[in-house]
């Protein structure tokens, strides 16, 4: 598979003088087309900077970033990049612009100069995709957090991006809202083949990804499948992160001499493995 997003030796600093600290240092990251990548890291490790670099909201201080082969520093191609990569932010209130749900979803394609009849079709399709079609005439502020976040996602889908970056998009939601957004994200990735970059503080959400990247101080310190990454309990805790509770509990039991695989990620999986281990005893 080809690299859809390609960070090559990227350094980034928010101030142009050379004294200020670098948010990213010689950062290399390749995301394949259709991949579901989760990025983890403590506050201030540079995750959100990566999100902003993906669609040229910020430009690298040094190094190169290519989106579908386009250099993000190429000003003439700015709209081509933004059309390919959409970003969903943490707070849906910062992302919703219109007073009616369907107007909000239409805002993106309108700005891209899409034909009115095509906009109508895309808006309906996007709202159906996130199960918010019945709410198309609602005022956004009357919706719950999870519903608003789904409208924000519909607004991005209507622009037909090939890649969506979610920057802590579940941080403000209740458990149901988080589950709603997560199932939407999985659908976009698995059914529509959209490349997903999912930035989060919730370890149990990262478990759904094809690949997990852990960042610390502007660098990648772990990179692999969720099972490969989460067995590094010590290292993850050292950089201010957690591991899924199921993983940590199995590790504690293994240390007590109980035979379990060490890469268990989910509670259901742990239930089954515990029962197997208990039955072996009898």
């Amino acid at each position: 598979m080809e690299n859809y997003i390609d960070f090559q030796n990227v350094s980034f600093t928010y101030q142009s003088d050379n004294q200020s600290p670098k948010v990213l240092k010689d950062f290399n990251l390749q995301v394949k087309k259709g991949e579901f990548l989760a990025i983890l890291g403590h506050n201030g490790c540079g995750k959100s900077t990566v999100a902003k670099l993906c669609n040229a909201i910020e430009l690298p201080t040094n190094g190169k970033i290519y989106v579908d082969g386009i250099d993000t520093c190429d000003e003439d191609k700015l709209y081509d990049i933004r059309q390919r990569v959409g970003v969903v932010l943490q707070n849906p209130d910062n992302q919703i612009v219109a007073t009616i749900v369907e107007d909000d979803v239409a805002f993106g394609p309108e700005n891209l100069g899409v034909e009115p009849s095509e906009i109508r079709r895309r808006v309906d399709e996007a709202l159906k995709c996130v199960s918010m079609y019945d709410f198309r005439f609602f005022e956004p502020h009357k919706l719950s957090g999870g519903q608003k976040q789904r409208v924000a996602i519909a607004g991005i889908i209507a622009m037909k991006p090939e890649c969506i970056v979610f920057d802590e998009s579940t941080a403000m939601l209740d458990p149901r809202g988080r589950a709603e957004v997560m199932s939407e994200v999985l659908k976009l990735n698995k059914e529509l083949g959209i490349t997903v970059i999912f930035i989060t503080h919730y370890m149990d959400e990262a478990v759904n990804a094809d690949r997990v990247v852990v960042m610390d101080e502007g660098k990648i310190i772990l990179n692999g499948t969720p099972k490969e990454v989460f067995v590094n309990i010590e290292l993850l805790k050292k950089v201010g992160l957690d591991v899924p509770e199921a993983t940590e509990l199995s590790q504690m039991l293994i240390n007590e001499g109980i035979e379990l695989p060490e890469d268990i990620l989910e509670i259901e999986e742990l239930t089954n493995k515990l029962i197997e281990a208990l039955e072996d005893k009898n």
Partner: protein
Amino acid sequence: MSVAILETKDLNHAYSKGTAHEIAAIENINLSIEEGELVGIIGHTGSGKSTLIQHFNGILKPSSGTVLLDGEDIWKDKTKIRNVRFKVGLCFQYPEYQLFEETVYKDIAFGPKNMGLSAEEIDKKVRQVISFVGLSEDYLEKSPFDLSGGEKRRVAIAGVMAMEPRVLILDEPCAGLDPKGRNTILQLVTDYQKKTGSTVVVISHSMEDISKIASKILVMNKSRLAYYDSVDNVFSNAAELKEMGLNIPSITQLFLNLRNRGYDVKTNIYTLEEAKKELLRLFSKEEK
């Protein structure tokens, strides 16, 4: 028997009252919070959690019903509502957006100053709380805007703690923080409750966090009070909580799964240590 510090009687609040858009935000809330509890509030977004706590210190006035602090209606004498706000300190969601002074010192001193304390007393309190939230006195002369997100959050919480309210209310104090930042704040809240013995109320969307720190849980659902009970009793209603868009802690779910598969285990388990103990007990029992 302990004494109720905060009570609500038939408390109702409607937004846009008298217009076509009238919406009941909380309905018929009858509640009695005892002194020294650490109450966790959970509920889906829009369930009325924030509306409820804003009644506790008189930011919102009930549409009908009463709020009692130490047995007295807080709205009996309107001119005294300011005193209620010193006794019941409220820390909003994302409190770091409210920092406004030139230095951390001045920002923390703002509340105590408004209470009319002397400069000496203020100085003492500022130094006490800054070390309590785990920051050194070097921070006092810094601008709050030069701090990291987690530090700003701690300074904002310190500002409310400096007033030494008898009831401290925190609306989602861990929102947006990484796991380490989250643990620091949770530890801070429990330490504060233990050290001062004051009543603390915390809103959270994390069932895991609430199960670990709270002594009682208040559940809001669709503007109404669904439960106000011990942690064990509330989390024994797994199906009902899921129906309300909430959940039970993931560790508790594990034990519920085992119970449903015919194993004799406790299900009121919330921490990894408790879980390890209970599972080791199960394994040693099965061996016999």
